[in-house]
Protein backbone atom coordinates (compact mmCIF):
# COMPACT_ATOMS: atom_id res chain seq x y z
CA UNK A 1 0.00 0.00 0.00
CA UNK A 2 1.71 3.07 -1.15
CA UNK A 3 0.29 6.49 -1.64
CA UNK A 4 1.16 9.27 -4.04
CA UNK A 5 0.27 12.82 -3.11
CA UNK A 6 0.68 15.75 -5.47
CA UNK A 7 0.96 19.30 -4.11
CA UNK A 8 0.53 22.14 -6.58
CA UNK A 9 2.24 25.36 -5.52
CA UNK A 10 2.74 28.80 -6.98
CA UNK A 11 5.42 31.43 -6.94
CA UNK A 12 3.76 34.79 -6.39
CA UNK A 13 4.68 38.44 -6.03
CA UNK A 14 4.71 39.40 -2.37
CA UNK A 15 1.65 41.63 -2.40
CA UNK A 16 1.58 41.96 1.39
CA UNK A 17 4.98 43.60 1.65
CA UNK A 18 5.17 46.01 -1.17
CA UNK A 19 8.23 48.17 -1.36
CA UNK A 20 7.62 51.32 -3.34
CA UNK A 21 4.75 51.76 -5.76
CA UNK A 22 2.81 48.78 -7.03
CA UNK A 23 2.19 50.51 -10.33
CA UNK A 24 4.55 52.16 -12.77
CA UNK A 25 3.60 55.57 -14.19
CA UNK A 26 2.57 53.84 -17.46
CA UNK A 27 -0.07 51.88 -15.60
CA UNK A 28 1.57 48.46 -15.62
CA UNK A 29 2.35 46.42 -12.55
CA UNK A 30 5.75 47.21 -11.13
CA UNK A 31 7.11 43.70 -10.58
CA UNK A 32 10.39 45.07 -9.25
CA UNK A 33 8.48 46.34 -6.21
CA UNK A 34 7.10 42.86 -5.65
CA UNK A 35 9.67 40.22 -4.70
CA UNK A 36 8.75 36.64 -5.66
CA UNK A 37 7.82 34.36 -2.77
CA UNK A 38 6.29 30.95 -2.11
CA UNK A 39 2.53 31.49 -1.94
CA UNK A 40 1.76 31.33 1.82
CA UNK A 41 -1.20 28.93 1.75
CA UNK A 42 0.67 26.64 -0.64
CA UNK A 43 3.19 26.23 2.17
CA UNK A 44 0.29 25.02 4.33
CA UNK A 45 -0.69 22.55 1.59
CA UNK A 46 2.91 21.38 1.39
CA UNK A 47 3.10 21.01 5.18
CA UNK A 48 -0.05 18.87 5.16
CA UNK A 49 1.50 16.82 2.35
CA UNK A 50 4.67 16.28 4.35
CA UNK A 51 2.65 15.25 7.42
CA UNK A 52 0.74 12.71 5.32
CA UNK A 53 3.99 11.48 3.80
CA UNK A 54 5.32 10.83 7.30
CA UNK A 55 2.11 9.17 8.51
CA UNK A 56 1.41 7.00 5.48
CA UNK A 57 4.82 6.64 3.89
CA UNK A 58 3.51 8.43 0.83
CA UNK A 59 5.47 9.69 -2.12
CA UNK A 60 5.20 13.46 -2.26
CA UNK A 61 5.41 15.11 -5.68
CA UNK A 62 5.30 18.88 -5.92
CA UNK A 63 4.37 20.67 -9.12
CA UNK A 64 4.13 24.26 -10.28
CA UNK A 65 3.29 26.14 -13.43
CA UNK A 66 5.31 29.27 -14.05
CA UNK A 67 8.34 30.83 -15.69
CA UNK A 68 11.64 28.86 -15.64
CA UNK A 69 12.78 30.49 -12.40
CA UNK A 70 9.68 29.18 -10.59
CA UNK A 71 11.96 26.19 -9.99
CA UNK A 72 12.93 28.13 -6.85
CA UNK A 73 9.71 27.17 -5.09
CA UNK A 74 10.24 23.57 -6.18
CA UNK A 75 13.70 23.44 -4.62
CA UNK A 76 12.26 25.05 -1.50
CA UNK A 77 9.65 22.25 -1.44
CA UNK A 78 12.36 19.62 -1.71
CA UNK A 79 14.22 21.29 1.16
CA UNK A 80 11.11 21.02 3.29
CA UNK A 81 10.38 17.39 2.52
CA UNK A 82 8.98 16.74 -0.98
CA UNK A 83 10.43 13.78 -2.88
CA UNK A 84 10.09 14.88 -6.47
CA UNK A 85 9.40 18.09 -8.34
CA UNK A 86 7.82 18.96 -11.68
CA UNK A 87 7.96 22.32 -13.43
CA UNK A 88 5.33 23.04 -16.05
CA UNK A 89 6.74 25.84 -18.12
CA UNK A 90 6.05 27.07 -21.62
CA UNK A 91 5.53 30.46 -23.20
CA UNK A 92 2.25 29.08 -24.51
CA UNK A 93 0.90 29.11 -20.93
CA UNK A 94 1.45 32.87 -20.53
CA UNK A 95 -1.56 35.07 -19.88
CA UNK A 96 -3.65 32.21 -18.54
CA UNK A 97 -6.67 32.98 -16.37
CA UNK A 98 -7.85 30.47 -13.77
CA UNK A 99 -9.74 28.30 -16.27
CA UNK A 100 -6.73 27.92 -18.58
CA UNK A 101 -4.45 27.40 -15.57
CA UNK A 102 -6.58 24.64 -14.12
CA UNK A 103 -6.75 22.93 -17.51
CA UNK A 104 -2.94 23.06 -17.85
CA UNK A 105 -2.49 21.70 -14.32
CA UNK A 106 -4.97 18.89 -15.03
CA UNK A 107 -2.80 17.83 -17.99
CA UNK A 108 0.22 17.97 -15.71
CA UNK A 109 -1.47 15.82 -13.03
CA UNK A 110 -2.42 13.23 -15.63
CA UNK A 111 1.17 13.21 -16.86
CA UNK A 112 2.48 12.62 -13.33
CA UNK A 113 0.28 9.55 -13.30
CA UNK A 114 -1.62 7.75 -10.59
CA UNK A 115 -2.20 9.68 -7.37
CA UNK A 116 -4.38 9.45 -4.29
CA UNK A 117 -4.61 13.10 -3.34
CA UNK A 118 -3.95 16.48 -4.85
CA UNK A 119 -3.38 19.34 -2.41
CA UNK A 120 -3.48 23.03 -3.27
CA UNK A 121 -3.37 26.11 -1.10
CA UNK A 122 -6.82 27.68 -0.80
CA UNK A 123 -5.77 30.76 -2.76
CA UNK A 124 -2.76 32.71 -4.00
CA UNK A 125 -2.06 36.20 -2.72
CA UNK A 126 -1.60 37.77 -6.17
CA UNK A 127 -5.19 37.19 -7.24
CA UNK A 128 -6.91 35.89 -4.08
CA UNK A 129 -9.41 34.08 -6.31
CA UNK A 130 -9.39 30.57 -4.73
CA UNK A 131 -10.59 29.28 -8.10
CA UNK A 132 -7.81 27.06 -9.41
CA UNK A 133 -8.27 24.32 -6.79
CA UNK A 134 -12.00 23.71 -7.42
CA UNK A 135 -11.56 24.12 -11.18
CA UNK A 136 -8.70 21.63 -11.24
CA UNK A 137 -10.88 19.15 -9.34
CA UNK A 138 -13.64 19.58 -11.90
CA UNK A 139 -11.24 19.20 -14.83
CA UNK A 140 -9.97 15.92 -13.39
CA UNK A 141 -13.48 14.76 -12.47
CA UNK A 142 -12.49 14.53 -8.80
CA UNK A 143 -14.50 15.29 -5.69
CA UNK A 144 -13.08 18.23 -3.75
CA UNK A 145 -12.81 19.16 -0.10
CA UNK A 146 -12.27 22.90 0.18
CA UNK A 147 -10.74 24.78 3.15
CA UNK A 148 -9.14 21.71 4.75
CA UNK A 149 -7.65 22.25 8.20
CA UNK A 150 -6.46 18.72 8.86
CA UNK A 151 -6.71 15.16 7.60
CA UNK A 152 -8.02 12.70 10.16
CA UNK A 153 -7.55 9.56 8.14
CA UNK A 154 -6.42 8.44 4.73
CA UNK A 155 -7.02 4.97 3.33
CA UNK A 156 -6.86 3.58 -0.18
CA UNK A 157 -10.62 4.11 -0.40
CA UNK A 158 -11.33 7.39 1.30
CA UNK A 159 -10.07 10.43 3.11
CA UNK A 160 -11.65 11.93 6.22
CA UNK A 161 -10.87 15.59 6.67
CA UNK A 162 -11.83 18.54 8.83
CA UNK A 163 -12.71 21.62 6.82
CA UNK A 164 -13.70 25.17 7.67
CA UNK A 165 -17.25 26.32 6.99
CA UNK A 166 -18.81 29.70 7.71
CA UNK A 167 -18.80 29.99 11.51
CA UNK A 168 -17.45 26.53 12.24
CA UNK A 169 -16.18 23.28 10.81
CA UNK A 170 -17.24 20.01 9.21
CA UNK A 171 -15.79 16.53 9.21
CA UNK A 172 -16.33 14.99 5.78
CA UNK A 173 -15.69 11.63 4.18
CA UNK A 174 -14.69 11.61 0.56
CA UNK A 175 -13.55 8.85 -1.77
CA UNK A 176 -10.03 9.04 -3.21
CA UNK A 177 -8.59 10.17 -5.48
CA UNK A 178 -9.70 13.60 -4.33
CA UNK A 179 -8.51 17.18 -4.35
CA UNK A 180 -8.22 19.27 -1.21
CA UNK A 181 -7.61 22.98 -0.86
CA UNK A 182 -5.80 23.81 2.36
CA UNK A 183 -6.13 26.82 4.65
CA UNK A 184 -3.56 28.29 7.04
CA UNK A 185 -4.37 25.92 9.89
CA UNK A 186 -0.90 24.42 10.35
CA UNK A 187 2.56 25.85 10.86
CA UNK A 188 4.76 25.05 7.87
CA UNK A 189 8.07 23.57 8.93
CA UNK A 190 11.21 25.33 7.77
CA UNK A 191 13.66 23.83 5.32
CA UNK A 192 15.59 20.90 6.72
CA UNK A 193 19.39 21.28 6.71
CA UNK A 194 19.95 17.72 5.52
CA UNK A 195 17.52 18.21 2.67
CA UNK A 196 19.19 21.46 1.68
CA UNK A 197 22.52 19.67 1.42
CA UNK A 198 20.87 16.94 -0.61
CA UNK A 199 18.80 19.03 -2.98
CA UNK A 200 20.68 22.28 -3.44
CA UNK A 201 22.04 20.98 -6.74
CA UNK A 202 18.62 19.83 -7.96
CA UNK A 203 17.90 21.44 -11.32
CA UNK A 204 15.79 21.52 -14.42
CA UNK A 205 17.00 20.88 -17.94
CA UNK A 206 17.02 24.64 -18.66
CA UNK A 207 19.14 25.23 -15.60
CA UNK A 208 21.59 22.52 -16.60
CA UNK A 209 21.84 23.97 -20.10
CA UNK A 210 22.28 27.43 -18.70
CA UNK A 211 25.06 26.26 -16.42
CA UNK A 212 26.82 24.88 -19.47
CA UNK A 213 26.38 27.96 -21.61
CA UNK A 214 27.52 30.17 -18.72
CA UNK A 215 30.65 28.07 -18.53
CA UNK A 216 30.95 28.32 -22.31
CA UNK A 217 30.96 24.57 -22.36
CA UNK A 218 28.97 22.96 -25.13
CA UNK A 219 29.40 19.26 -25.11
CA UNK A 220 26.15 17.52 -26.02
CA UNK A 221 27.41 14.25 -24.71
CA UNK A 222 28.37 15.71 -21.36
CA UNK A 223 24.84 17.11 -21.05
CA UNK A 224 23.35 13.67 -21.50
CA UNK A 225 25.73 12.15 -18.99
CA UNK A 226 25.10 14.87 -16.42
CA UNK A 227 21.35 14.62 -16.88
CA UNK A 228 21.51 10.88 -16.29
CA UNK A 229 23.64 11.42 -13.19
CA UNK A 230 21.20 13.99 -11.74
CA UNK A 231 18.29 11.63 -12.37
CA UNK A 232 20.18 8.82 -10.73
CA UNK A 233 20.71 10.96 -7.63
CA UNK A 234 17.10 12.14 -7.55
CA UNK A 235 18.18 15.71 -8.29
CA UNK A 236 16.35 16.09 -11.57
CA UNK A 237 13.48 18.57 -11.59
CA UNK A 238 11.32 17.43 -14.42
CA UNK A 239 10.57 20.25 -16.85
CA UNK A 240 7.44 19.83 -18.94
CA UNK A 241 6.12 21.86 -21.86
CA UNK A 242 2.55 22.14 -23.12
CA UNK A 243 3.36 19.48 -25.69
CA UNK A 244 4.93 17.18 -23.08
CA UNK A 245 1.69 17.10 -21.10
CA UNK A 246 -0.49 16.85 -24.21
CA UNK A 247 -2.25 20.16 -23.61
CA UNK A 248 -4.64 21.41 -26.31
CA UNK A 249 -3.09 24.68 -27.49
CA UNK A 250 -6.56 26.26 -27.83
CA UNK A 251 -7.25 25.76 -24.14
CA UNK A 252 -4.10 27.24 -22.60
CA UNK A 253 -2.60 30.70 -22.17
CA UNK A 254 -4.42 33.78 -23.38
CA UNK A 255 -6.31 31.79 -26.01
CA UNK A 256 -7.77 29.46 -23.43
CA UNK A 257 -8.82 32.28 -21.12
CA UNK A 258 -12.39 33.55 -21.30
CA UNK A 259 -11.69 36.53 -19.06
CA UNK A 260 -9.86 39.58 -20.34
CA UNK A 261 -8.59 42.50 -18.33
CA UNK A 262 -10.23 45.66 -19.60
CA UNK A 263 -8.28 48.05 -17.45
CA UNK A 264 -6.18 48.29 -14.34
CA UNK A 265 -6.14 51.25 -12.00
CA UNK A 266 -4.00 52.08 -9.06
CA UNK A 267 -5.99 52.42 -5.88
CA UNK A 268 -6.50 56.10 -5.25
CA UNK A 269 -7.84 57.09 -1.93
CA UNK A 270 -10.32 59.83 -2.31
CA UNK A 271 -9.46 62.30 0.36
CA UNK A 272 -12.44 63.13 2.51
CA UNK A 273 -13.05 66.58 3.93
CA UNK A 274 -10.50 66.27 6.65
CA UNK A 275 -10.68 67.95 10.00
CA UNK A 276 -7.87 67.76 12.49
CA UNK A 277 -9.12 67.50 16.07
CA UNK A 278 -6.96 68.44 19.01
CA UNK A 279 -6.51 65.57 21.47
CA UNK A 280 -7.72 67.87 24.25
CA UNK A 281 -10.95 68.01 26.21
CA UNK A 282 -12.09 70.98 24.15
CA UNK A 283 -11.24 69.29 20.86
CA UNK A 284 -12.94 66.02 21.73
CA UNK A 285 -16.00 67.83 23.13
CA UNK A 286 -16.50 69.80 19.94
CA UNK A 287 -16.15 66.62 17.84
CA UNK A 288 -18.75 64.75 19.88
CA UNK A 289 -21.00 67.79 19.73
CA UNK A 290 -20.72 67.94 15.94
CA UNK A 291 -21.51 64.23 15.57
CA UNK A 292 -24.58 64.53 17.77
CA UNK A 293 -25.74 67.62 15.87
CA UNK A 294 -25.61 65.84 12.50
CA UNK A 295 -27.28 62.71 13.96
CA UNK A 296 -24.27 60.46 13.47
CA UNK A 297 -24.30 59.83 17.20
CA UNK A 298 -27.00 59.65 19.82
Amino acid at each position, binding site marked *: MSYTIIVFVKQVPDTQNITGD*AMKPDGTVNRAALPAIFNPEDLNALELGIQLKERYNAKLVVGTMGPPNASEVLRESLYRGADEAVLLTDRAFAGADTLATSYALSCCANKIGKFDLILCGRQAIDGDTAQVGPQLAEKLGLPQISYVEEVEELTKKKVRAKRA*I*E*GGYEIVDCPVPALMTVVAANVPRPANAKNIMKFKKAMTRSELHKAHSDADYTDAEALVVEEAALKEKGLWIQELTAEDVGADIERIGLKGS*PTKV*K*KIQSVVLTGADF*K*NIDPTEVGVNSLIHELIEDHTLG
Partner: protein
Amino acid sequence: MADKIGNVWIFIEQEGGNIENVSLELVSKGRELADTLGVDAEAIFLGDNLKEESVSKLYHHGCDKVFLVEDKKLEPFTILPYAKCIVDLVKVNKPNIILFGATNKGRELGPRVASELLCGLTADCTELEIDDFEDRVNKKTYKNKLMQIRPAFGGNIIATIVNTWEDPQIVTVRPGVMKLNDADTGKKGALVKVEPKITSKETVMSVIERVRKEKDVDLQGAQIIVAGGYGVGSKEKFQLIKDLAEALGGDVGASRAAVDAGWVDHDHQVGQTGVTVRPKLYIACGISGSIQHRAGMTDSGKIIAINNDPDAPIFSCAHYGIVGELHDVIPKMITAFKAKV
Protein backbone atom coordinates in the same frame (compact mmCIF):
# COMPACT_ATOMS: atom_id res chain seq x y z
CA MET B 1 -24.90 38.01 -30.53
CA ALA B 2 -28.17 38.42 -32.39
CA ASP B 3 -29.88 36.08 -29.95
CA LYS B 4 -31.86 37.52 -27.14
CA ILE B 5 -29.63 37.75 -24.10
CA GLY B 6 -30.37 35.64 -21.07
CA ASN B 7 -31.52 36.69 -17.64
CA VAL B 8 -29.60 37.66 -14.53
CA TRP B 9 -29.38 34.84 -12.00
CA ILE B 10 -28.60 34.99 -8.32
CA PHE B 11 -27.54 31.92 -6.37
CA ILE B 12 -29.38 32.04 -3.06
CA GLU B 13 -27.39 30.84 -0.11
CA GLN B 14 -29.27 29.52 2.88
CA GLU B 15 -28.46 28.05 6.24
CA GLY B 16 -31.27 26.12 7.87
CA GLY B 17 -33.63 27.57 5.27
CA ASN B 18 -32.80 31.16 6.19
CA ILE B 19 -31.46 33.25 3.35
CA GLU B 20 -28.03 34.76 3.95
CA ASN B 21 -27.81 38.56 3.78
CA VAL B 22 -25.30 38.47 0.97
CA SER B 23 -27.84 36.77 -1.29
CA LEU B 24 -30.38 39.53 -0.73
CA GLU B 25 -27.68 42.12 -1.43
CA LEU B 26 -27.02 40.29 -4.70
CA VAL B 27 -30.71 40.15 -5.53
CA SER B 28 -30.73 43.95 -5.10
CA LYS B 29 -27.76 44.32 -7.45
CA GLY B 30 -29.07 41.66 -9.83
CA ARG B 31 -32.36 43.56 -10.11
CA GLU B 32 -30.45 46.69 -11.08
CA LEU B 33 -28.36 44.87 -13.70
CA ALA B 34 -31.45 43.15 -15.12
CA ASP B 35 -33.20 46.52 -15.48
CA THR B 36 -30.19 47.95 -17.32
CA LEU B 37 -30.19 45.00 -19.70
CA GLY B 38 -33.97 44.83 -20.04
CA VAL B 39 -34.12 41.22 -18.81
CA ASP B 40 -35.46 39.43 -15.73
CA ALA B 41 -33.79 38.81 -12.39
CA GLU B 42 -34.14 35.20 -11.32
CA ALA B 43 -33.11 33.36 -8.17
CA ILE B 44 -31.84 29.80 -7.97
CA PHE B 45 -32.74 28.50 -4.56
CA LEU B 46 -31.51 25.05 -3.52
CA GLY B 47 -32.03 23.07 -0.34
CA ASP B 48 -34.60 20.86 1.31
CA ASN B 49 -37.99 21.83 2.76
CA LEU B 50 -37.43 25.49 2.01
CA LYS B 51 -39.90 27.98 3.44
CA GLU B 52 -42.50 29.78 1.41
CA GLU B 53 -41.73 33.01 3.24
CA SER B 54 -38.13 32.79 2.06
CA VAL B 55 -39.32 32.57 -1.53
CA SER B 56 -41.58 35.60 -0.97
CA LYS B 57 -38.63 37.51 0.40
CA LEU B 58 -36.83 36.98 -2.91
CA TYR B 59 -39.79 38.49 -4.77
CA HIS B 60 -39.90 41.41 -2.36
CA HIS B 61 -36.30 42.29 -3.10
CA GLY B 62 -36.80 42.13 -6.84
CA CYS B 63 -36.77 38.60 -8.28
CA ASP B 64 -39.17 38.02 -11.16
CA LYS B 65 -38.81 34.29 -10.85
CA VAL B 66 -37.51 31.73 -8.37
CA PHE B 67 -36.19 28.35 -9.49
CA LEU B 68 -36.75 26.16 -6.46
CA VAL B 69 -34.77 22.93 -6.25
CA GLU B 70 -35.55 20.77 -3.24
CA ASP B 71 -34.05 17.41 -2.37
CA LYS B 72 -32.85 15.60 0.74
CA LYS B 73 -29.46 15.24 -0.95
CA LEU B 74 -29.08 19.02 -0.96
CA GLU B 75 -28.99 19.16 2.84
CA PRO B 76 -26.48 19.53 4.38
CA PHE B 77 -24.57 21.36 1.68
CA THR B 78 -22.04 19.27 -0.23
CA ILE B 79 -20.51 20.60 -3.37
CA LEU B 80 -21.16 17.97 -6.02
CA PRO B 81 -25.00 17.79 -5.92
CA TYR B 82 -25.20 21.60 -5.82
CA ALA B 83 -22.86 21.97 -8.78
CA LYS B 84 -24.78 19.34 -10.75
CA CYS B 85 -28.18 21.00 -10.18
CA ILE B 86 -26.88 24.45 -11.12
CA VAL B 87 -25.08 23.24 -14.25
CA ASP B 88 -28.23 21.38 -15.37
CA LEU B 89 -30.33 24.51 -14.84
CA VAL B 90 -27.88 26.73 -16.72
CA LYS B 91 -27.76 24.40 -19.71
CA VAL B 92 -31.53 24.55 -20.12
CA ASN B 93 -32.20 28.20 -19.29
CA LYS B 94 -29.03 29.92 -20.53
CA PRO B 95 -28.72 32.88 -18.18
CA ASN B 96 -26.57 35.86 -19.14
CA ILE B 97 -25.09 36.47 -15.69
CA ILE B 98 -24.83 34.45 -12.47
CA LEU B 99 -24.01 36.11 -9.16
CA PHE B 100 -22.66 34.10 -6.22
CA GLY B 101 -21.78 35.43 -2.77
CA ALA B 102 -18.03 35.33 -2.17
CA THR B 103 -18.59 33.18 0.91
CA ASN B 104 -16.98 29.83 1.61
CA LYS B 105 -19.82 28.11 -0.26
CA GLY B 106 -19.95 30.53 -3.16
CA ARG B 107 -16.20 30.52 -3.62
CA GLU B 108 -16.03 26.73 -4.00
CA LEU B 109 -19.25 26.35 -5.95
CA GLY B 110 -18.68 29.18 -8.46
CA PRO B 111 -15.41 27.78 -9.84
CA ARG B 112 -16.72 24.22 -9.98
CA VAL B 113 -19.74 25.39 -12.01
CA ALA B 114 -17.76 27.78 -14.23
CA SER B 115 -15.14 25.13 -14.98
CA GLU B 116 -17.74 22.62 -16.12
CA LEU B 117 -19.51 25.21 -18.28
CA LEU B 118 -16.16 26.51 -19.64
CA CYS B 119 -17.08 30.02 -18.52
CA GLY B 120 -15.05 32.86 -17.21
CA LEU B 121 -15.33 33.63 -13.51
CA THR B 122 -14.22 36.64 -11.51
CA ALA B 123 -13.90 36.38 -7.75
CA ASP B 124 -14.64 38.93 -5.05
CA CYS B 125 -16.06 41.71 -7.21
CA THR B 126 -16.62 45.00 -5.47
CA GLU B 127 -18.53 46.68 -8.30
CA LEU B 128 -20.52 45.44 -11.29
CA GLU B 129 -21.59 47.54 -14.27
CA ILE B 130 -22.94 47.00 -17.75
CA ASP B 131 -20.85 48.47 -20.54
CA ASP B 132 -19.44 47.68 -23.99
CA PHE B 133 -16.02 46.14 -24.34
CA GLU B 134 -13.68 46.64 -27.23
CA ASP B 135 -11.08 43.90 -27.48
CA ARG B 136 -8.37 45.76 -29.38
CA VAL B 137 -6.10 42.73 -29.63
CA ASN B 138 -8.70 40.57 -31.36
CA LYS B 139 -10.53 43.53 -32.95
CA LYS B 140 -13.90 42.55 -31.60
CA THR B 141 -16.55 44.61 -29.88
CA TYR B 142 -18.84 43.15 -27.27
CA LYS B 143 -22.10 44.91 -26.41
CA ASN B 144 -23.62 45.10 -22.96
CA LYS B 145 -21.09 43.01 -21.10
CA LEU B 146 -20.74 42.75 -17.36
CA MET B 147 -17.80 44.84 -16.13
CA GLN B 148 -16.41 42.81 -13.23
CA ILE B 149 -14.49 45.18 -11.00
CA ARG B 150 -12.28 43.76 -8.25
CA PRO B 151 -9.19 44.51 -6.24
CA ALA B 152 -6.07 42.51 -7.12
CA PHE B 153 -2.46 42.30 -5.99
CA GLY B 154 -3.45 42.44 -2.36
CA GLY B 155 -5.78 45.38 -2.96
CA ASN B 156 -3.08 47.57 -4.48
CA ILE B 157 -4.81 47.74 -7.85
CA ILE B 158 -8.36 47.62 -9.12
CA ALA B 159 -8.95 45.54 -12.25
CA THR B 160 -11.94 45.60 -14.59
CA ILE B 161 -12.46 42.14 -16.05
CA VAL B 162 -14.72 41.03 -18.89
CA ASN B 163 -15.80 37.55 -19.90
CA THR B 164 -15.51 37.28 -23.67
CA TRP B 165 -16.65 33.69 -24.13
CA GLU B 166 -20.19 32.48 -24.25
CA ASP B 167 -22.55 33.35 -21.42
CA PRO B 168 -23.07 33.03 -18.56
CA GLN B 169 -20.75 35.61 -17.08
CA ILE B 170 -20.13 34.38 -13.55
CA VAL B 171 -18.89 36.39 -10.58
CA THR B 172 -18.67 36.18 -6.83
CA VAL B 173 -19.28 39.28 -4.71
CA ARG B 174 -18.17 39.80 -1.14
CA PRO B 175 -20.81 40.15 1.58
CA GLY B 176 -21.56 43.72 2.62
CA VAL B 177 -20.32 45.25 -0.61
CA MET B 178 -23.59 45.66 -2.51
CA LYS B 179 -26.31 47.77 -1.01
CA LEU B 180 -29.46 46.00 0.13
CA ASN B 181 -32.59 47.54 -1.41
CA ASP B 182 -35.80 48.10 0.52
CA ALA B 183 -38.19 45.18 0.46
CA ASP B 184 -41.49 45.81 -1.33
CA THR B 185 -43.90 43.36 0.27
CA GLY B 186 -46.43 43.92 -2.49
CA LYS B 187 -44.16 42.39 -5.14
CA LYS B 188 -44.85 38.92 -6.47
CA GLY B 189 -43.04 36.59 -8.83
CA ALA B 190 -43.26 33.23 -10.53
CA LEU B 191 -42.24 30.02 -8.79
CA VAL B 192 -40.69 27.26 -10.90
CA LYS B 193 -40.17 23.99 -9.07
CA VAL B 194 -37.34 22.00 -10.57
CA GLU B 195 -36.92 18.25 -10.21
CA PRO B 196 -33.21 17.68 -9.49
CA LYS B 197 -31.34 14.92 -11.29
CA ILE B 198 -28.79 14.00 -8.65
CA THR B 199 -27.09 10.67 -9.29
CA SER B 200 -24.91 8.41 -7.14
CA LYS B 201 -21.88 10.09 -8.73
CA GLU B 202 -22.66 13.31 -6.85
CA THR B 203 -23.43 11.76 -3.48
CA VAL B 204 -20.02 10.22 -2.83
CA MET B 205 -19.14 12.70 -0.11
CA SER B 206 -20.76 12.68 3.30
CA VAL B 207 -20.76 15.07 6.19
CA ILE B 208 -19.93 13.16 9.38
CA GLU B 209 -20.07 16.07 11.78
CA ARG B 210 -21.01 19.71 11.49
CA VAL B 211 -20.27 22.29 14.17
CA ARG B 212 -21.39 25.81 13.69
CA LYS B 213 -21.96 28.72 16.00
CA GLU B 214 -23.67 31.95 15.27
CA LYS B 215 -21.32 34.87 15.01
CA ASP B 216 -20.65 36.86 18.20
CA VAL B 217 -21.22 39.99 16.24
CA ASP B 218 -22.67 40.97 12.90
CA LEU B 219 -20.69 43.99 11.84
CA GLN B 220 -22.38 44.19 8.47
CA GLY B 221 -25.52 45.63 9.96
CA ALA B 222 -23.77 47.82 12.54
CA GLN B 223 -24.40 51.58 12.54
CA ILE B 224 -21.49 52.48 14.78
CA ILE B 225 -18.21 50.57 14.83
CA VAL B 226 -15.28 51.23 17.13
CA ALA B 227 -12.30 49.33 15.77
CA GLY B 228 -8.93 48.69 17.36
CA GLY B 229 -5.63 47.89 15.69
CA TYR B 230 -2.15 46.86 16.68
CA GLY B 231 -1.55 50.30 18.14
CA VAL B 232 -3.93 49.45 20.99
CA GLY B 233 -1.00 47.59 22.47
CA SER B 234 -2.36 44.58 24.34
CA LYS B 235 -5.38 42.41 25.02
CA GLU B 236 -5.95 44.23 28.31
CA LYS B 237 -5.84 47.62 26.66
CA PHE B 238 -8.33 46.42 24.05
CA GLN B 239 -10.94 46.82 26.79
CA LEU B 240 -10.71 50.54 26.04
CA ILE B 241 -12.09 49.88 22.54
CA LYS B 242 -14.93 47.82 24.00
CA ASP B 243 -15.70 50.55 26.52
CA LEU B 244 -16.01 53.20 23.84
CA ALA B 245 -18.18 50.92 21.69
CA GLU B 246 -20.44 50.24 24.63
CA ALA B 247 -20.71 53.90 25.57
CA LEU B 248 -21.66 54.90 22.01
CA GLY B 249 -24.00 51.96 21.51
CA GLY B 250 -21.80 50.50 18.81
CA ASP B 251 -20.02 47.27 17.96
CA VAL B 252 -16.37 46.33 18.22
CA GLY B 253 -14.29 45.97 15.08
CA ALA B 254 -10.62 45.19 14.60
CA SER B 255 -7.80 45.20 12.12
CA ARG B 256 -6.18 41.98 11.05
CA ALA B 257 -3.12 42.74 13.17
CA ALA B 258 -5.23 42.92 16.33
CA VAL B 259 -7.00 39.67 15.45
CA ASP B 260 -3.73 37.92 14.63
CA ALA B 261 -2.35 39.10 17.96
CA GLY B 262 -5.22 37.24 19.62
CA TRP B 263 -6.76 40.30 21.28
CA VAL B 264 -10.15 39.83 19.66
CA ASP B 265 -12.03 37.16 17.71
CA HIS B 266 -11.92 36.90 13.90
CA ASP B 267 -15.66 37.70 13.65
CA HIS B 268 -14.66 41.28 14.46
CA GLN B 269 -12.14 41.66 11.65
CA VAL B 270 -12.79 44.42 9.14
CA GLY B 271 -11.07 44.46 5.76
CA GLN B 272 -10.24 42.34 2.80
CA THR B 273 -9.92 39.10 4.76
CA GLY B 274 -12.64 40.09 7.20
CA VAL B 275 -15.97 41.79 6.64
CA THR B 276 -16.80 44.82 4.56
CA VAL B 277 -18.76 47.37 6.57
CA ARG B 278 -20.58 50.61 5.89
CA PRO B 279 -21.68 52.02 9.26
CA LYS B 280 -22.74 55.61 9.89
CA LEU B 281 -19.67 56.07 12.05
CA TYR B 282 -16.37 54.20 12.05
CA ILE B 283 -13.80 55.01 14.71
CA ALA B 284 -10.37 53.58 13.89
CA CYS B 285 -8.22 53.43 17.02
CA GLY B 286 -4.54 52.61 16.69
CA ILE B 287 -5.11 51.27 13.17
CA SER B 288 -2.39 52.30 10.74
CA GLY B 289 -4.73 51.79 7.78
CA SER B 290 -3.28 49.20 5.41
CA ILE B 291 -4.85 49.09 1.97
CA GLN B 292 -6.45 45.77 2.95
CA HIS B 293 -8.11 47.30 6.00
CA ARG B 294 -9.30 50.40 4.19
CA ALA B 295 -10.87 48.21 1.48
CA GLY B 296 -13.35 47.06 4.12
CA MET B 297 -14.39 50.39 5.65
CA THR B 298 -13.93 53.38 3.33
CA ASP B 299 -17.65 53.48 2.53
CA SER B 300 -18.47 54.36 6.14
CA GLY B 301 -20.49 57.55 6.55
CA LYS B 302 -18.02 59.28 8.89
CA ILE B 303 -14.58 58.04 9.77
CA ILE B 304 -12.66 59.15 12.85
CA ALA B 305 -9.02 58.08 13.07
CA ILE B 306 -7.13 58.18 16.34
CA ASN B 307 -3.44 57.41 16.10
CA ASN B 308 -0.25 58.62 17.72
CA ASP B 309 1.52 58.56 14.35
CA PRO B 310 0.54 61.66 12.35
CA ASP B 311 1.74 59.94 9.16
CA ALA B 312 -0.48 56.86 9.52
CA PRO B 313 -2.22 56.17 6.18
CA ILE B 314 -5.58 55.85 7.96
CA PHE B 315 -5.76 59.66 8.17
CA SER B 316 -5.93 59.90 4.38
CA CYS B 317 -9.41 58.32 4.34
CA ALA B 318 -10.65 59.85 7.60
CA HIS B 319 -13.05 62.77 8.03
CA TYR B 320 -11.72 63.53 11.49
CA GLY B 321 -8.22 62.87 12.68
CA ILE B 322 -6.97 62.94 16.24
CA VAL B 323 -3.23 62.61 16.72
CA GLY B 324 -2.87 61.40 20.25
CA GLU B 325 -2.69 58.51 22.69
CA LEU B 326 -5.71 56.19 22.91
CA HIS B 327 -5.63 55.91 26.70
CA ASP B 328 -5.90 59.66 26.83
CA VAL B 329 -8.34 60.38 23.99
CA ILE B 330 -10.85 57.53 24.41
CA PRO B 331 -11.83 58.30 28.03
CA LYS B 332 -12.28 61.95 27.01
CA MET B 333 -14.64 60.84 24.25
CA ILE B 334 -16.66 58.67 26.64
CA THR B 335 -16.94 61.52 29.14
CA ALA B 336 -17.89 64.03 26.45
CA PHE B 337 -20.56 61.76 24.98
CA LYS B 338 -22.09 60.92 28.36
CA ALA B 339 -22.24 64.61 29.21
CA LYS B 340 -24.12 65.45 25.99
CA VAL B 341 -26.83 62.82 26.10
